[in-house]
Every structure is written in structure tokens, then in C-alpha cells.
């Protein structure tokens, strides 16, 4: 019996070839095992169980037709072939569309059914698939997906690699790297599931399940790969439907379903690999030799069984002698000044991916380019639910994203209506554009919502954070819509007063609130919150001397990860806070403020934080004996999240506040940039661009810069271009162009991966929407002489 085994890489993220060889050697001591590899740098070629080696050139050098012919000869000659490389398996499926009795890999039709992230074939299995979205969607939608899932998301390649992306700039960097590496834009973002990693591994021959085990990871590498595990019988409720799936797919070969079990016991499928896992010898140790069971079924030759099985296995590091006929290759020269030797993928796996893409063997269907798929939403019977709903549209609507790939982001009609009021071609750029009707509608809605949420016992009020954008037009709109003005300095207090606010409508907050001296209003302000114990002492002294007068005095509680507010992260800190509250005068009402940007931590996390802070407030109230009458909740809401969050959710939040703090009479909500961000846009002009020989525009220079868009690193902006012929505004799609700012600074890139519209010309105006919050208020003068 001669068996060819490929996938011998044996580093920290190993391929299964060695484990398969060890398993087959245990079952068939006399078999002739041939190791197949594509680089003499893969240490697995030196493993003792291989009787022969068939070392190929790396995939970028291989003549695929000749290699296919060689494999056919091998198979026709009676040898078996077990592949441990996903891409090789896909290629073999194209080489042998009708299969081959000695080729122990799955057919192309089965591979399509298990391609991630949808894994269609798993529908009848007792598991669900974490929610995902294709990166062919617009950046606006991808950012929304990340926020909705609290930035607990993984960016995954179509075949290998997954990187946790914690922030927008990290996502952008990883997307570029993975797209380049795997020659495709078809990546996907998938939500993280917290839990324990488990696998079901099976082998099959011509649709017949020959063996199946269940493995729990017990030790993991830093990359999350199995280092130790226990192997047991797979539960019958899993095996029964699996057997049916295997039959329907006419599966041949090994396979692994990689899953996570969450705390509630639900299994989530991460992916289905069309091959044995690298830990396959662990199954053999446990007494279930899956490769042997498959070979036994394919050949009819009985396999020898293990006699002293052990359910638990672990890995160790071993040094083995190098085969004299394959001496170690030299290390590549490090790049000057670089660390390491840049030796990833010595077998040329990336080149194989590129070649298979060009041959249309992979990447056409089912490799991450499917519709968004919501499966974490509790729809009882399975995981292939309707398209993920992504909130878009700056407070105008909740839009279900259409299935078209590379779709442009949707833009609220009010943006267009406001932009049409400007004569942009005559305008000097870069220029800020106030979107008046958009701003009016946002403030109006917020005011109406506060009224709607107000009950007989609790008054709900909005607060406008002046620092978000101190533009007088916005401050006036806030005033007219019944907002309070939240200031972080006495200069901001004065600005509010000059714009029409009365002192009793002003909230004073933040660590530098007393700056500059001498500008405190002489009459009582609405509320003031201390940011530290020292600040509280100063506040108490000011109140005692009547320098400061306020209807509500209180404290800002520090949220996890924040530098602002009074910490409660130790019992001592809580005790200090409780004691300090004693200093506050009893003739003012007592209030608590807390703040965390929902755009940074995600919507779900924000609501958890809200519940958490209510518990802290209850503790503070109970321990200090001071009834909390005012709750001031800050924000940093991304506009789409705040405006599309249902009023039911806010109503429940008010009820919850009342439940935890029965004395609360006022809830102040600070929607932050939810008001300001959509209210302004930035117009800039195309200064120059040039198409490459292939007609692609890789770079275009604009007269705007990161000095006007400092938030570029934190959020995408929807970019509009008006067709001069039709006068129609169109949002830029994803593409290959980088928009370079005018500054002579390396990092001045205001947009990456956009597509300049056909017909765009030098001098055309591009409008960057969603720039009315910190882009506007934190923009700086740079490079203007």
C-alpha cells in the first residue's frame, strides 16, 4: 500500500501531514508513506515515518498541468493521496472533476457547500454561524457592523488567516494586507464568540462516514491553535445529521468542523476545513484512527488498532535529524534594517491562491462573497437567516443593505437637498458646508424624543456638548430644541450664554471646567459635576463661598478604560468617593454623570455599561445616603446608532434608571456627535491624478487634508461627487484609489480604497459628509503659510 500525504508544514500553525502519517504508520506498519511538499524549508519532510519524499517546487514555479499529470499517474498506479492543504484540495477537485477512487479528497460540489463563512452544508447540524458581513460592502456599512458588535470582530481571509480588528484604522490596515496576500477583495468580517473551542473531526469515503470524534481544546497556542485536547465520542445528536450531510455531499476525505461553545452552551461554527486537522494524531492516541478508518474503507485492508488509548493528548517540541538528501536551505538575507527573514509561506501558498483565482478555480462563489447573514439573532431553527440589517442614513432611516457587492453607501436625501443649495464650483476649497435642513431635522427629532420620553416622574432633557462643534448655528438649534448646554470650560459657558442660553440651562463638566478663572456666571447654573475627589473639594468650597451656585451638584463616575471621572475601581476608591460626597451641600440636588463614547465601545457594550453604571449609582446612593435626583448620561453616539435606536430602547433606559434610582427626577442625555457629525460636510477639490497603463487610478491628490479631517483614522466618511453632466450626486464606491491630502506629510491620506467616478476631472469637487463633529472642532491650521 502506497499513500501520498501532503501538507507537511510543522511550525506553530502546522498542517496535518505529520499527524496523518503517524496515524497511518500506527495502523499500517508496512505501508509505503510518501511525503509531498512544496518547499524544503518545511520541517515535516524530515519526519521519520515517511519512506519517500516527493518534493515539488513551490507553487509559483510549478507547472500545474505537468503536476496534475504526475498525480494522475500516481493515482492510476494504485497509490492513495491524502491532502493536507486546502488550496491543493480545491485545485485537485478541478483537476479530477469526476473524482478518482484513490484520491481521498472531497469533490468540488462538496467544497462549494462548505465554503466559509456561510457553510451551507451545515444547515442541518445543531450549530449556528456567527454573524458576518462581506468586505465588499461599503466602508460605512462595515463600520456600522463593527459598532453594532462592539468591535469584537474578526477580519478573515477567504481560505486562511483571521485577525481581530479592534479599531477602524486597524481594520483598514489588515484589510489591505489580507486582500493583497490572497489576491481578493472577498474577505469578511465576523463577530467574535466568547467561549471554549471544540471540533468535530470526521473521515468519509464516497459519502459514507467512516469515523467521527469530538475534540475540546485544552491548551492553545498564542495563535489559538490546538496544543492539547481531549478526544471523545461525538454526541449522537451531532453524528446523525452529520452522517446525512456527508452522504448528501458525497464526501471523501477528512474534515474538521471548528466551533466555539458559548457560556449558554450554544455551538457556533467558525469554519469547516476539507481535510484532517493538524491534531489528528491526538484522535489516534484516543483510540479512533480516522485516517486509517478511511483508508481501510477505501482499500479493504484491515487497519491495526491501538491498544492503550488515552483520551487526552498534548504536544511537545522535538528535534529530529535532517534527511541527508534534503539538507537545510540557507536563510534568506534579512532586508536592510528589518527584523527576521521574511519566510512566510515558503511553499508558495499565496502564489497558488493567485493562480487559482486567475484560473477561476476559486473565488467565484461562496468564498466570502455571499449575502450578509444574520445568525446570532436567535432565530430558533437555524443559522441562515435574512440579510443583516445595517443601520445607515444619519438619522433618517434604518436601511436593509441590498445584496449588490461593492455597493456605495446610502446617503440621506436631506444631505443632497442641503448640498444643492451651495454653488460649489464657485467656492474656494477646502470649505465647510453647513447642512441646514439636516441639522434642523436632527435637533427637532431629538427634542421630540425627549418630550416623548418624559414621564410624570422623570423629565428627560438633551444636553448639547459644545466642544463637539461650537458652531453658533448648532448651539442655537440646540437652544431652540430645548437642549441644555454642556460646557467643559468657562469659555464654553460664556459662548453658550452669548448664544442665548441662560445660566440655569448650563451644565459644567470635565477636569478643566474652572478655566479660565473669573468667568463663572453669577447666577445659578443647572448642574456641575466634579471630575476627581480634589475637584469635588474645590467645588464644595466654591459652593460654600457662593462663588458657584448650581441647582444640581454631583460627581462624574469613571467608566472602565477612561481617564475622566472619579474612579470606583477599588473598594478604597469607592470609600473615598462615599466619604467625599458628604462634603456636598444638602441644599442642592445630587446628581451623577458618566460618559463613554458608544462609537468606540459599540452599541451593545454601551447599553451594558449603562446598566453597569446604574448599579454603581445605586451603590453610591445607598452608601452615601444621598438620593440621586439627576442622572446625566453621555454619549459619543455615532449618529446612525443614536438616531436609529428605537425609542422603546430609550424608554426602557429611563424606566431602568427609575428602577435602580427611585429618586431620579431628571435624566439628561448627551447625544454628542450624533447631532453634529451629519450636520456638516467638507468640500475639497481634485488637484491631480493619473491613470496607470492598465487604466487604474491608484492615487489622486486633493486640496483637503487630515488637518480638516482629523477623524479619518477613526471613522469612514461618505464621499459624494456630482456628475457635471447630469448634476446627480453619487457616493464613491470602494475601489483602488487613495485620496492623498495636500499636506506634505506621509500620513495625510484622507481616503483609501475608493473608486473615482468615471469622468471625474481635475477641479471636480468631492464632498466628505459626516464631518460636522470632531473633524470640524478639532481641525487645525496646517500648511497654509
Amino acid at each position: 500500500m502506497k499513500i501520498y500525504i501532503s501538507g507537511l508544514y510543522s511550525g506553530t500553525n502546522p498542517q496535518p501531514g505529520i499527524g496523518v502519517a503517524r496515524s497511518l504508520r500506527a495502523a499500517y506498519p508496512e505501508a509505503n508513506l510518501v511525503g509531498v511538499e512544496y518547499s524544503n524549508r518545511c520541517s515535516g519532510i524530515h519526519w521519520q515515518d515517511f519512506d519517500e519524499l516527493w518534493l515539488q517546487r513551490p507553487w509559483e514555479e510549478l507547472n500545474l498541468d505537468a503536476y496534475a499529470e504526475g498525480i494522475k499517474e500516481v493515482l492510476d498506479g494504485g497509490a492513495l493521496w491524502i491532502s493536507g492543504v486546502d488550496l491543493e484540495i480545491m485545485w485537485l477537485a478541478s483537476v479530477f472533476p469526476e473524482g478518482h477512487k484513490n484520491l481521498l479528497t472531497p469533490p468540488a460540489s462538496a467544497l462549494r457547500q462548505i465554503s466559509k463563512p456561510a457553510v451551507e452544508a451545515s444547515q442541518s447540524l445543531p450549530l449556528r454561524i456567527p454573524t458576518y458581513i462581506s468586505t465588499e460592502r461599503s466602508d460605512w456599512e462595515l463600520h456600522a457592523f463593527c459598532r453594532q458588535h462592539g468591535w469584537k470582530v474578526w477580519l478573515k481571509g477567504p481560505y486562511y488567516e483571521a485577525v481581530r480588528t479592534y479599531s477602524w484604522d486597524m481594520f483598514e490596515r489588515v484589510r489591505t494586507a489580507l486582500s493583497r496576500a490572497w489576491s481578493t477583495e472577498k474577505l469578511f468580517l465576523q463577530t467574535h464568540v466568547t467561549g471554549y473551542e471544540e471540533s468535530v473531526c470526521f473521515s468519509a469515503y464516497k459519502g459514507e462516514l467512516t469515523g467521527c470524534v469530538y475534540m475540546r481544546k485544552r491548551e492553545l497556542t498564542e495563535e489559538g491553535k490546538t496544543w492539547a485536547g481531549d478526544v471523545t465520542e461525538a454526541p449522537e445528536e451531532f453524528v446523525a445529521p452529520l452522517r446525512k450531510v456527508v452522504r448528501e455531499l458525497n464526501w471523501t476525505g477528512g474534515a474538521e468542523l471548528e466551533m466555539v461553545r458559548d457560556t449558554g452552551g450554544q455551538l457556533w461554527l467558525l469554519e469547516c476545513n476539507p481535510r484532517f486537522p493538524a491534531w489528528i494524531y491526538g484522535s489516534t492516541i484516543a483510540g479512533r484512527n480516522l485516517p486509517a478508518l478511511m483508508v481501510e474503507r477505501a482499500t479493504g485492508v484491515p487497519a491495526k488498532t491501538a491498544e492503550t488509548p488515552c483520551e487526552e493528548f498534548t504536544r511537545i517540541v522535538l528535534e529530529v535529524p535532517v534527511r541527508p538528501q534534503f539538507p537545510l536551505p540557507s536563510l534568506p538575507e534579512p532586508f536592510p534594517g528589518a527584523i527576521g527573514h521574511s519566510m512566510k509561506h515558503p511553499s508558495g501558498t499565496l502564489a497558488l491562491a493567485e493562480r487559482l483565482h486567475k484560473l477561476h478555480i476559486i473565488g467565484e462563489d461562496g468564498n466570502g462573497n455571499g449575502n450578509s447573514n444574520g445568525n446570532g439573532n436567535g432565530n430558533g431553527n437555524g443559522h441562515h437567516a435574512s440579510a443583516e440589517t445595517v443601520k445607515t442614513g444619519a438619522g433618517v432611516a434604518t436601511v436593509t443593505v441590498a445584496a449588490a457587492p461593492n455597493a456605495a453607501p446610502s446617503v440621506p436625501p436631506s444631505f443632497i437637498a442641503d448640498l444643492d443649495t451651495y454653488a460649489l464650483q464657485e467656492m474656494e476649497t477646502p470649505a465647510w458646508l453647513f447642512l441646514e435642513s439636516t441639522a434642523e431635522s436632527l435637533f427637532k427629532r431629538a427634542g421630540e424624543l425627549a418630550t416623548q420620553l418624559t414621564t410624570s416622574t422623570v423629565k428627560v432633557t438633551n444636553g448639547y456638548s459644545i466642544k463637539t462643534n461650537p458652531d453658533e448655528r448648532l448651539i442655537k438649534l440646540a437652544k431652540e430644541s430645548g437642549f441644555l448646554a454642556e460646557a467643559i470650560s468657562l469659555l464654553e459657558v460664556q459662548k453658550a450664554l452669548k448664544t442665548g442660553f441662560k445660566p440655569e440651562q448650563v451644565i459644567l463638566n470635565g477636569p478643566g471646567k474652572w478655566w479660565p478663572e473669573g468667568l463663572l456666571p453669577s447666577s445659578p447654573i443647572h448642574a456641575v459635576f466634579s471630575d476627581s475627589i480634589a475637584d469635588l473639594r474645590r467645588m464644595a468650597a466654591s459652593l460654600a463661598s457662593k462663588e458657584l451656585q448650581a441647582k444640581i451638584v454631583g460627581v462624574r463616575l469613571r467608566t472602565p478604560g477612561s481617564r475622566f471621572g472619579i474612579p470606583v475601581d477599588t473598594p478604597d476608591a469607592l470609600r473615598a468617593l462615599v466619604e467625599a460626597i458628604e462634603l456636598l451641600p444638602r441644599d442642592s440636588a445630587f446628581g451623577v454623570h458618566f460618559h463613554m463614547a458608544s462609537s468606540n465601545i459599540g452599541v451593545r457594550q454601551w447599553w451594558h455599561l449603562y446598566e453597569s453604571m446604574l448599579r454603581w449609582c445605586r451603590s453610591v446612593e445607598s452608601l452615601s445616603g444621598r438620593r440621586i435626583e439627576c442622572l446625566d448620561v453621555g454619549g459619543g453616539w455615532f449618529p446612525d446608532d443614536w438616531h436609529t435606536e428605537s425609542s422603546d430602547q430609550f424608554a426602557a433606559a429611563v424606566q431602568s434608571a427609575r428602577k435602580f434610582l427611585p429618586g431620579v427626577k431628571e435624566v439628561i442625555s448627551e447625544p454628542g456627535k450624533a447631532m453634529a457629525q451629519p450636520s456638516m460636510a467638507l468640500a475639497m477639490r481634485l488637484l491631480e491624478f493619473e491613470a496607470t497603463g492598465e487604466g487604474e487610478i491608484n492615487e489622486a491628490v486633493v486640496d483637503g487634508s487630515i488637518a480638516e479631517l482629523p477623524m479619518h483614522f477613526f471613522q469612514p466618511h461618505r464621499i459624494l461627487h456630482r456628475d457635471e453632466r447630469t448634476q446627480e450626486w453619487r457616493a464613491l464606491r470602494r475601489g483602488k484609489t487613495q485620496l492623498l491630502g495636500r499636506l506634505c506629510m506621509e500620513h495625510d491620506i484622507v481616503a483609501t480604497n475608493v473608486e473615482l467616478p468615471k469622468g471625474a476631472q481635475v477641479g471636480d469637487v468631492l464632498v466628505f459628509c459626516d464631518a460636522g463633529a470632531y473633524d470640524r472642532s478639532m481641525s487645525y491650521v496646517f500648511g497654509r503659510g
Partner: protein
Amino acid sequence: MSLAEDKLIEVNEADFVDTGAAIEKWRHFPYSAILHHGRLCCRIAREWIFSHDYTQLNGEHPLTGPRWIRQKWTWGPSSWPISWCEAVERKTLDCGALAAISQEVYTARGVTNYPAQFIQQYSEDSVLHWQKKWNGEEVSTHWINEDLIYHEGCAVVTRDAEIKLWDASAGWWVNPKQFGGYGGLLALRISAPQSVSGAFEWGTHRIAPNQWQKIERARNDFAHPSANAHSRAAAHD
């Protein structure tokens, strides 16, 4: 394994362990409880623990093990009795205190749970080290009996009678599939009110409440010599 009459025979090491004597030693040993002074000092401590726990839960499932407890406190000798205000000030707490805190935390989360007492097997080297450490702190070593130790945790009800065992000192769930050996759980007692009549289900074990119960060693799923030939997968084809 040991040799007898020139034949290699399988011996379960746990068979040599006198679990019965250990149970006898700790038969009347109560689970740990932390004192409350009835004053603000202990109220602050408890409020802090509960609010902090909710924050640390980070929106995850209420059954999630409170790993933060083991991050805040090192496992080690603590003198008893101990009050809540003292416990939060300490840097080191023993298994009884850590278990008691985790029980209170689960209760605050609304999760039904019960005190769990363990008898575990370690090695003579380990217990010698622990003995010296506890003696150095002038704290009782009543929890050590040769190579067996008394330990505490928290039985968390996941569904109906189903439980999981949270080892607050280790920050992990005890594996219900027990093979004995180093760290193996030999006996378990779950203290529940009289109103809890039926047995708890812990993996494949059925645990009667309020009595020490030896934990049966697990058999390997594929231990049968003909496991391959009679695999579940094949048997149903």
C-alpha cells in the same frame, strides 16, 4: 502501571488513594462563610464586589465564570474568621474565601448556586510546599491530608438539576470527566437547602446534595479493543 507475575496489568492509581479516610476527616467540616460587621465598612466592600462584577461581566452571559476574582486576589493562606471589609483589603485569600465571594457574586447575578467542597489529589511534593507556606503564615493546614487536599468551589446551576463546578481559586470550571491523578477530583459535597431534594447532574455524575460523594473515574470512550471496528459512526451506517 505495575508488574505482577510477569504480566503487565492496568492499575488505576486512584485505587491506592484512601478517599474514604479523607472524607471521614472532612465529614463535618463546614464550607466557608465570610462575616459581615453589619456596618458601612462591610456594606462598601460588598457593594463594590457586586458592582465591579457586573462591570467586569462586560455584557456576557451571567453564567460566565468570574475570572476577575482570581485576578484581584492571589490564592494563598488566609486567617479565619474573615469579614467582607477585611477580605477586600487582603491581597491573598484562600479557596474558602474565594469560593464564598464567587457564590455571592453568582447570587447577585441571579444565578442559583451552592457551596461546593472538594477532595482533590495532588502530590507529596506539592503538599509539602503548601504546608510550609501555610505554616509560615501561622495558618491552619487542616485542609491537607497526606497527598490529598480539601478545597472549595461553587456549584452553579446551569439548567434544572444540571450544574457546573466553578473553582474560584483556579479561575476555571472543573472538568466533569475525571481520570484521577494530579489535581483530580476524588470526592465532592454540594450543600443545598432541604428544599432541594433530587440529585444534581454534573456531566455524567449524579451528585446527591449534602453528602460527600466519591467521584467515579471516567472510562475512555474508545477504550474497547475493537473501538475502531465498532465506532459509533460506522455502527449506524
